[in-house]
């Protein structure tokens, strides 16, 4: 199984390279981050035929020969908030080049809870914020999208019904990898160790090249040819053991350190990696080198799944803007600090109120804070000034206070050619849990 996209915006040509670079049975494409769902929801509101990851259309066109002629199957969560529209777009884009019946698109729906929110609340599902415990009523009127993270079952069902392309909405990233393994090997819903192994395989390849040399700190200078980085492949056997590798003649590297870095990425409690299908125990994973650019993964244990699904709810939460200016040596940091002080005084005088004002000095402390030490002699420092608040007008007014500093603030300032900062509407996230039993998925296979 090949991983061909780590997020919506990843390398457009990677899916094609993955199916043409060597033999693969499945191509897994992960498009959805939390922020993506709300963007797609806004697009669907403007045009009911949108609301899916449109990059997937180009990806499908580029891998179509492999799907039709070589029998490669594709599983993608590109459906976003509108999987049927995504399927229709794929059909339209490929119709001319596809023999009749060669493309059987499985469409998974049922994760979208937006239209059911009030009836769920009425029925006693509180959808309280997992982190803060606050009730959903606090933000109900600002909700943009609400989707349950669904697991492997509907994808397995679609494959069993003969689909060779499966399009889901908000399924978990890891289910996209695990479901085809479960289908091919006939793993049961209680084969906890195998299911957990499939989840770990999914976790390793769900971020694309981030397990095969991309963003890898370990001995980073020695990682060859990132310009031609190979995206990951897992070769899995029925017992759940697998090897992580990549196609021959590609750049990057698959090694124990590159895979380990990806395993710890976005990790919580390693003993309980909770998914809809199984709880995987990351403290049981064994890694071993298995030849050049090959890492063997074994020993994985799983525990029974919970009776809940996570729900991701996106809601409007005010506005923000960030402005920047660059100050040059000598005393670059001190000048930027002086400008910050001038700006704060002016905003106060204007009576502008914000929930949050944050100043960072890029080049001195933006990423590592006080740990970076004394940067008074820095050759240049970027003042980066951000505000956030419920009042669009106040944020808008702030954006007009940056440019004047060029002529009426501290000296040796440049880097303002980009114009006024843009005001952005904030879409925030409300994580919640819901009983599994109330989320009903359905699968339709269209030709």
């Amino acid at each position, binding site marked *: 199984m090949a991983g061909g996209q780590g997020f919506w915006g990843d390398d457009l040509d990677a899916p094609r390279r993955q199916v043409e670079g060597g033999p693969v049975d499945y191509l897994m494409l992960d498009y959805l981050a*939390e*922020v993506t769902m709300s963007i797609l929801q806004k697009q669907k509101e403007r045009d009911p035929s949108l609301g899916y990851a449109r990059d997937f259309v180009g990806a499908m066109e580029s891998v179509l020969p492999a799907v039709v002629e070589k029998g490669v199957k594709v599983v993608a969560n590109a459906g976003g908030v509108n999987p049927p529209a995504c399927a229709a777009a794929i059909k339209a884009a490929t119709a001319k080049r596809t023999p009749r019946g060669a493309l059987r698109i499985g469409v998974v729906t049922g994760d979208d809870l937006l239209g059911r929110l009030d009836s769920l609340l009425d029925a006693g599902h509180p959808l309280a914020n997992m*982190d803060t415990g606050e009730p959903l009523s606090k933000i109900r009127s600002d909700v943009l999208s609400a989707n349950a993270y669904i697991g492997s079952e509907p994808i397995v069902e679609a494959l069993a019904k003969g689909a060779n392309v499966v399009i889901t909405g908000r399924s978990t990233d890891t289910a996209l990898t695990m479901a085809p393994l479960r289908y091919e090997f006939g793993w049961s819903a209680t084969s906890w160790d195998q299911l957990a192994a499939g989840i770990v395989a999914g976790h390793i390849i769900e971020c694309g090249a981030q397990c095969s040399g991309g*963003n890898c*700190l*370990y001995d980073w200078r020695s990682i060859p040819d990132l310009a031609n980085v190979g995206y990951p492949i897992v070769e899995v056997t029925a017992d759940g053991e697998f090897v992580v590798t990549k196609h021959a003649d590609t750049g990057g590297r698959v090694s124990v*350190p590159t895979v*380990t*870095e*990806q*395993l*710890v*990425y*976005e*990790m*919580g*409690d*390693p*003993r309980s990696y909770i998914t809809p299908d199984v709880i995987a125990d*990351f*403290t*049981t*994973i*064994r*890694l071993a080198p298995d030849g050049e650019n090959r890492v063997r993964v074994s*020993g994985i244990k799983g525990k029974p799944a919970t009776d809940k699904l996570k729900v991701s709810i996106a809601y409007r*939460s005010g506005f*923000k803007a*960030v402005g920047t200016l660059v100050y040059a040596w000598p005393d670059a940091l001190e000048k930027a600090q002086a400008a910050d002080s001038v700006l704060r005084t002016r905003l106060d005088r204007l009576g502008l109120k914000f929930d*949050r004002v*944050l100043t*960072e000095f*890029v080049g001195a402390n*933006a*990423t*590592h*804070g*006080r*740990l970076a030490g004394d940067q008074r002699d820095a050759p240049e420092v970027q003042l*980066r000034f*951000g*505000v*956030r608040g419920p009042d669009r007008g106040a944020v808008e007014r702030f954006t007009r206070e940056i440019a004047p500093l060029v002529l009426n603030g501290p000296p040796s300032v440049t880097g303002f050619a980009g114009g006024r900062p843009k005001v952005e509407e*904030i*879409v*925030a*996230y409300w*994580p919640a849990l819901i009983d599994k039993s109330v989320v009903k998925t359905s699968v339709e296979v269209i030709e």
Partner: protein
Amino acid sequence: MKIQLVDLAHARSGDKGDTANVGLIALKPEWYDVLNRHVTLDRVADHFRGMIEGEVERYELPNLNALNFLLHGALDGGGTLSLKTDAQGKVYSTALLRMMIDVPDDEAAEFGLPGVKPATGAKAR
């Protein structure tokens, strides 16, 4: 001897809401014990004091020669709310690698830590 984590470990970090996680991985498997002994919950909480608003959690993964730290309240609200350059906690990883630990000379010699020079308390790097 004093030694900086960047000479003993590599790391990757990511986000979940307003929490950043940092996975700290020994550069050599045999150095995991040194990390596990010296990179304690208290030391890490102290390292990030003033930079994060919440608690720190610590988990051990001896199978991967790694420790995992959760830094709560590290991302100015997290994801889309955050005004920070590092809104997704991508480089808390290397911020942790700045940490200095104090390893007894005999332990440093036993594990072959970098910078060990017999008899002179030589500094790391």
